[in-house]
């Protein structure tokens, strides 16, 4: 029986670039921005890095394939750099690689950098993705919002929620994230919006309007990890450790088997159960202090609240409308603005989520600092509801 990752690895430092439409910044500029902050936070020199992981989703734009873009941009000392890609959960994948290398003893200190330069595509939203040669011949030529929007129709049918009630609840999800993002100087979107604005925005994919969709941004984020012992030896106090790291990947059941009803994420439930067990969390609704979830679309966040077992099944609409996930609620969600407002440079997003949880746990989140959070959860999803990968990380104070 695996003993799990709990408290075996500590976060030594983190960094995150400003997210947004970074017309001025190259992929290299973005990587350097996050790297410099993380290295300063860790207080180490480049020659102390043993291995690196680089996450980057779209390879025909931005930095290109392989490990070299990161090694060259950061002038790393010829250490191992592994490029990883797992849809929108690529950032968490880089983090997993670095954490596992440290836990295995293969590296004393490892770094994970995620970066995406989306605003060189010319697209307003995400550019179409390559799914091989068979899927385009049998699958709809859809888009991310169209795929995620289907959650809404299936959720409404299953739980008997009216179109109006669901629309209003997902509007509240976005209003809350905009309010949070307005307090984050690194966020792509820093403007509050009203429920009326969200409800009346142009339709993107029924029932998702413009404000139900996350920002499509440029950005990079970085994490440097080591063992708790080395962190202490380097003089670090207030050490934040990894409590759980889980990844669940669809095996085609949702897409091909009638047992899935289309209203939830099968992988999220699988990963959440394993993550809570690994982190020794038995009552997530009480024990999780705060969350950064993969709110690529407002409806994704709403159903995810149930899949993470924070809201009871069928109760997310009520919890959302009650303000349970607002900044002043019981379990604040997207306190940094989330994908919705901080932005979604794909390969960086998982690390960006961890960055906010790390800052909050260290009491360094500035104007949006929550009072005494102890456990932070990140939920990083890639793919689409019927076919996806779900990465969940839980971090907290060492030995808490």
């Amino acid at each position, binding site marked *: 029986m695996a003993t799990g990752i709990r408290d075996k690895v500590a976060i030594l430092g983190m960094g995150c670039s400003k997210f947004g439409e970074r017309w001025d910044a190259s992929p290299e500029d973005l990587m350097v921005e996050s790297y410099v902050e993380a290295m300063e936070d860790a207080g180490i020199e480049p020659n102390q890095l043993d291995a690196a992981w680089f996450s980057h989703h779209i390879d025909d734009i931005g930095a290109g394939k392989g490990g070299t873009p990161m090694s060259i941009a950061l002038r790393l000392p010829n250490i191992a750099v592994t490029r990883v890609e797992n849809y929108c959960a690529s950032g968490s994948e880089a983090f997993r690689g670095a954490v596992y290398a440290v836990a295995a003893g293969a590296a004393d200190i490892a770094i994970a950098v995620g970066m995406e330069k989306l605003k060189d595509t010319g697209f307003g939203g995400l550019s179409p993705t390559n799914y091989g040669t068979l899927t*385009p*011949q049998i699958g709809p030529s859809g888009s991310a919002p169209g795929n995620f*929007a289907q959650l809404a*129709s*299936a959720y409404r049918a299953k739980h008997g929620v009216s179109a109006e009630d669901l629309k209003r609840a997902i509007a509240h999800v976005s209003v809350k994230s905009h309010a949070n993002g307005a307090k984050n100087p690194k966020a792509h979107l820093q403007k509050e919006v009203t429920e009326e604005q969200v409800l009346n925005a142009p*339709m993107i994919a*029924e029932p998702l309007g413009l404000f139900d969709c996350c920002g499509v941004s440029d950005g990079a984020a970085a994490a440097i990890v080591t063992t708790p012992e080395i962190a202490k030896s380097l003089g670090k106090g207030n050490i934040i450790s990894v409590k759980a790291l889980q990844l669940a990947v669809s095996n085609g*059941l949702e897409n091909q*088997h*009638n047992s899935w009803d289309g209203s939830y994420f099968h992988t999220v439930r699988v990963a959440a159960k394993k993550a809570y067990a690994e982190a020794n969390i038995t009552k997530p609704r009480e024990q999780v202090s705060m969350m950064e979830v993969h709110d690529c679309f407002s409806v994704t966040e709403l159903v995810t609240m149930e899949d993470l077992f924070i809201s009871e099944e069928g109760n997310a609409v009520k919890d959302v409308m009650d303000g349970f996930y607002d900044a002043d609620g019981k379990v604040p969600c997207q306190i940094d603005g989330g994908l919705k407002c901080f932005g979604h440079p794909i390969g960086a997003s998982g690390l960006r989520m961890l960055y906010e949880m790390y800052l909050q746990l260290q009491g360094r989140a500035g104007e949006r600092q929550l009072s005494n959070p102890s456990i932070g959860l990140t939920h990083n999803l890639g793919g689409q509801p019927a076919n996806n990968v779900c990465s969940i990380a839980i971090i907290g104070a060492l030995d808490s």
Partner: protein
Amino acid sequence: MSDVGISSIAGYLPRLRLSKKTVAQANSWIAPNLMGKGKGTRSMANWDEDSVTMSVEAIRRVLGKDDDRSHVDSLFFASTTMPFVDRLNSGIIRAALTLEESTECIDISSTLKSGTTALIQALDKVKSGGSDYSIVSASDKRKARSASSQELDFGDGAVAIAVDNENLIAKYINSSSLSIDFIDHFRQPNEEFDYNWEERWIRDEGYLKIVPKAIVELFSKANISGSDIDYFILPSVFPRVDQMIAKKCGINPENVVDNLALSTGDTGSAHSLLMFASILEKANPGEKVLISSFGGGSDAILFEITDNIKNYKPEQTIESLLNNGIEENNYMKYLTFNDLVKWEKGMRGEQDRKTALTTLYRHNDAIMGLVGGKCTKTGTIQYPASPISVSPNSPDLNTQEPYKFAEKKAKILSWSADYLSFSVNPPNHYGVVDFEEGGRIMVDFTDIEKGDIDSGMDVKMVFRVKIVDEIRGFTRYFWKAIPV
């Protein structure tokens, strides 16, 4: 020798009927002479329909829902608008219908009488014992320039006929066929539109002289006269030319069959046979039907209605087909569907749509025929089939046998109407459908408007164009769902 003839016939018309008044009014500033044609409607294919897809739908109505189609041993496809000049178009239809590989597939093209010519060929083949059961399908989706006469005269549609040696509703008596290089119009490969000569010449030297010649020859062969004809079928876009020919051939002008000009327009290669289908619903045993066609000569075919007509209950009558259309008053939509205007497709319309032909062939049954798998151990039905079954907790290896989805009913599980992704008819509707016996597919929905669908709604599958690769000139086909 046993009789041969027709055991079943079905038409297919696209859902939309373009208002001719709308077209005539839109063009009246430049073509005021066409205002007189601004009456009634013409059938208008969806952007994802072509002559092949319309034929597939017509043939499905003839064959019914039975998965076993092994009795079809030959297939004739007639059209002047085949999507491919060099790729067996009837072979595409065979694949979509999951007919046997041994079904002989024949394309007959290059003339508007290709439908009747194909029918004669199939009748002769069955008569000679070269086939026991043959399918003939004729279909056309002709393009016409904006503000042209043809735009108002043409219609899109298809017909399918089962040529058989038993259960005949119409017995084949005889036929004649003339090939004459009379060029009323022509169209070379890669040309989108016909070039037409003067109408009066076409009428006087073409129709009025050539069609009667074929009819007279047939009368002589069959030893009958015009007065024996109960139904005379001749498609023509010229008013009253059918009446004039009837008179010339001694046929009672009252027995001239309505050419559907005000409802469907002229569906080209399909039209003679579509008109034939339209009279079978009211024909009586013993009545004689003369089917004529014009184009590069003329065909004439004589049938006699049998007693079986009394019990003939087609899945969909031509009358209901005609009545079930939806009037379309958006002329721009017609122009856009037919690529007759240069419209902004956006960056998402630029995506390279190259089709991996290796993959298409490797998964030919799955892509073209919508064939999935059924696990022989657990009974789990899935699409597409895979080496390891998707059954939860029973990932059995190599246990799947082919399972056909195309004729199975399904319900919508989830859907969205997407304004972001590229579509010729936005919003782009797609979602997951669950099939009645099991299995699910995420599919495109077609033939719908915004607000037409919701979770739980019954749908059925139709064979359509998936995308057109404009760079390489390749049409990719797949199945989509439409409300029942």
